[in-house]
């Protein structure tokens, strides 16, 4: 049944030179499908996705891409980094844990995995993952401007004690890892966690910018993130939150040396969904081990200023469970709950927007300005048919792509649309056979862009 009445016969006037389209199309298809011919069922036989919960260009993304490019050589298939960002890490960590446990998706988990569930943002914990290896760890440090009056932590703590709530700090969003680092130190120093006002700024780079501009008095973040400004002499470090001094910067004392038993760090590690089969897990682990222990990877960490910390699965799991408990204590402490409740709540800004919007809508309705534009014709019944067709095609794709994969679903909706738009069948076949394999080749093979893989692997 056609949704749209047939009113015109549509002729093909679209040809490639003088050749008839069909042989050209068949030739193209043959060329494009050649690389995909040698199909087998061994693992791995198609690209692996590495989910990164943070955006492209950040530290986690850089580590992920380095590992991906080395893992690619180990595994013999492409390893594509997918930045599943948003929600302060919720999106990526959730997607990674709920991914199909077939060994074709793994996740770069970060310290936030142990924090998000304590704050009620997700149900996912480290137990939903089977950890592979920890691949990096960076200790936090506390930074102030070069002209700041405090020379050490003692003086800073004294200044905070005299004027609680007067000084401002940042480094990440509220409740983020560096916020916990600072709060932990304040508690250790016998102060309250809200004696320093935490300005919620997303990310260490904008926080450091704010420190330079004089908007905040101190920034807590990992050392590599502030390395350039530190080297430039624009900022000083009052201490690193580590057990030992940093090898490259031995002039900075640790918090422990200054009398505060406090260390804090962020880390990154690789993990897969916990339902994965043992055989595939072992194979992946072997490859990951090769990469993480390679000289190339260590050189990368060293050059980028990232701390190295390779931990075996058992040690990593142990670490995850211990850290999870530490964070549980901090997040459940009364002091931290006080900090999180803020003067200007989350609905403060939305209410302003909604109020403005209400005013404008009211004005537009009163002056009858919301009527149809001049160039818009009234919609006919057939027009709704067309709309339903286009929307339906997207919904069909949404319903079937996960199971059938990109190639079949795309062919399906193209066929449906071309048929309903009265394109004759030989042209339609030609279009489908050119467009689908070509876009598959372009996106999945050359550009490494994620496409739904489906159960058949394409």
């Amino acid at each position, binding site marked *: 049944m056609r949704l749209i009445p047939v009113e*015109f016969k*549509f002729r093909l006037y*679209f040809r490639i030179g003088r050749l008839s389209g069909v042989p050209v199309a068949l030739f193209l298809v043959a060329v494009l499908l050649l690389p995909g011919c040698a199909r087998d069922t061994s693992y791995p036989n198609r690209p692996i996705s590495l989910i990164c919960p943070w955006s*492209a*260009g*950040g530290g986690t993304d*850089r580590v992920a*891409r380095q590992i*991906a*490019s080395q893992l690619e050589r180990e595994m013999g298939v492409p390893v594509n980094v997918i*930045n*599943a960002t*948003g*929600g*302060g890490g*919720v*999106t990526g960590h959730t*997607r990674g844990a709920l991914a199909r446990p077939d060994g074709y998706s793994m996740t770069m988990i970060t310290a936030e995995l142990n924090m998000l569930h304590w704050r009620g943002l997700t149900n996912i914990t480290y137990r939903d993952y089977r950890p592979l290896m920890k691949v990096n760890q960076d200790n936090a440090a506390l930074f102030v401007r070069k002209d700041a009056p405090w020379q050490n932590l003692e003086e800073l703590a004294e200044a905070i004690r005299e004027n609680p709530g007067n000084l401002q700090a940042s480094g990440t969003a*509220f409740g983020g890892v560096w916020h916990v680092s600072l709060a932990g130190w304040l508690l250790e120093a016998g102060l309250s966690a809200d004696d320093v006002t935490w300005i*919620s*700024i997303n990310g260490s*780079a*904008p926080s450091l*910018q*704010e420190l330079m501009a*004089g908007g905040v008095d101190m920034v807590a973040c990992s050392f590599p993130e502030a390395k350039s*400004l530190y*080297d*430039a002499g624009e900022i000083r470090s009052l201490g690193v939150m580590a057990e030992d001094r940093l090898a490259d910067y031995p002039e900075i004392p640790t918090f422990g040396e200054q009398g505060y038993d406090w260390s804090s760090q962020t880390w990154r590690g690789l993990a897969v969904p916990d339902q994965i089969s043992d055989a595939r897990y072992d194979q992946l682990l072997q490859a990951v081990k090769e990469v993480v222990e390679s000289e190339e990877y260590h050189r*990368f960490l060293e*050059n*980028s200023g990232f701390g190295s910390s390779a931990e075996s699965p058992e040690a990593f799991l142990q670490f995850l469970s211990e850290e999870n408990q530490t964070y549980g204590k901090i997040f459940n402490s009364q002091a931290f709950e006080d900090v999180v409740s*803020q003067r*200007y709540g989350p609905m403060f*800004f*939305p209410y302003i*927007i909604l109020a403005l*919007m209400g005013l404008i809508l009211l004005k*537009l309705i009163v002056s009858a*300005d919301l*009527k149809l*534009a001049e160039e*818009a014709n009234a919609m006919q019944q057939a*027009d709704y048919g*067309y*709309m339903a067709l*286009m929307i339906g095609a*997207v919904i069909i*794709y949404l319903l079937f*792509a996960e199971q059938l994969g990109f190639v079949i679903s795309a062919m399906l909706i193209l066929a449906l*649309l*071309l048929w309903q*738009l009265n394109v004759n069948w030989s*042209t339609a076949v030609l*279009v489908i056979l050119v467009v689908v394999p070509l876009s598959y080749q372009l*996106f999945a093979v050359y*550009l490494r862009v*994620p*496409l*739904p893989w489906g159960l058949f692997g394409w």
Partner: protein
Amino acid sequence: MIEAIIQAIQQVILSPSIWLVILLSAVYGISLGAIPGLTATMAVALFVPITYWMDPVPALAGIATMAACAIFAGDIPTTLLRIPGTPASAAYVDDAYAFTRRGESEKPLGMALVGSVMGGLFGAVVLILLGGQLAKIASMFSVAEYFWLYLLGLSSAVVVARGPVLKSLLGLLIGLLLALVGLSAVHTEARFTFGFPQLYQGISFIPAMIGLFGFSEVLRKTIDLDTDLFTGGIPGEERSTLSSAGFLERWLIGPVTSLFRGPFSMIANRKRSFLRSGFIGSLIGMLPGAGADMASWVSLAASKKASKEPDNYGKGSLEGIADATTANNSALAGTWIPALVFGIPGDSITAIMIGVLLMKNLNPGPEIFVNQPVLVYSIYVAFIAANIALLVVGYFAIKAGRFVIRIPQRILLPVILLFCIIGSYAIQGSYFDIVIMLFMGVLGFFLERRAIPLGPIVLGIILGGPLEERFIQTITGSEGLILPFFDRPVAAILGIGFLVLWGWTIWSSRKEQ
């Protein structure tokens, strides 16, 4: 210093391998930027593993070229299909598409290419001459200044949009509201998620943009299919009058001059506008967190305010396209200013660039200018070379683009729909983004029928999050609601500028009535 410059020029200009890298990066950047949903950031991130085996100069030259080319290439689908290839093109989508409707798609594309190249060159010159000084200004910007800056950027969208101010404002507020969906960055609390965990990530602006412009256009075109059945949208594409001329004349010199003569003379005739747009681009680009998207809006707004024919904006204004494309490419060089001088990345592309520098054991910051002057000058020279490559590769991209509009609509529309789906899924491999694309497409279709402009919605989605962040950050640190926005000198200047702009807009619209 002179010696270092000469050495740098020799290193870049005389090295065939660097030119090869630049040329390949240009082709790569153009093809990625031309596909809606794939961004310049993505192009650069995918390039990173290759840079491990390259010397620093070719690696950075490749990144600079890719970024410049991808931003221009975004104008190609903007013009031909009304789908902005990158958010930086969303400001002038109606202007550019108006020409395609008249069968003159090469005019805006030629203008965009020349504007981008000249803007890129201008940005490079600013980076070279004023980089150090501008970086000092950038480091004075705190959250209060950014708050005003974002408000000024949002106001530009209202200034630029066609039609009554109230309707553009409504569009803007819809965008801002959509931006608030999900986990708020300041409070890390979920809002407007209605119990859907997928909504925690919020409405990503790439699928939203593809939906608003691309999918809604597909809907509109299918409905209009009966009226223009055979045309591929080329009612009278200008035919070459050189058929009797020789081979070289017909295939090379003729088309090249016909594409470039107009745009170049236009820029030559509008020197003041060109300088204004270039400076707007560099200034906004150098501020971390602003970037090319905002530069193109602000520049277009300034262009409209200064123009003698402001009514033409939004209906096909070449002046507007010239000024906006100049600004967005000049902003690209601007983002390298704080990145090189302080090691603070202005956007995700420079964040990746810093990563590559660190990999090569080079530490961005004031020292790099002292210890590695040749490298720094080589980057400058590479910027200039990148824009020359853009001019050449962009020309062929425009010519290849003509192929698209010759395809009959009945075949083209389903394929565009497929690309809308792929593009929204590509950014983070999420089905939910396809749902957003679908929803925003239908929303855009109905809003446009009521003449509510779509451009401000896109800018609202992009800037809504940062605006709220800066707002809350500014008022958390201090007492009172109004004072903190004015108690720093730069903030006060920006704030008063904002109030004057709106006072003037309201006053002049009153006078018209």
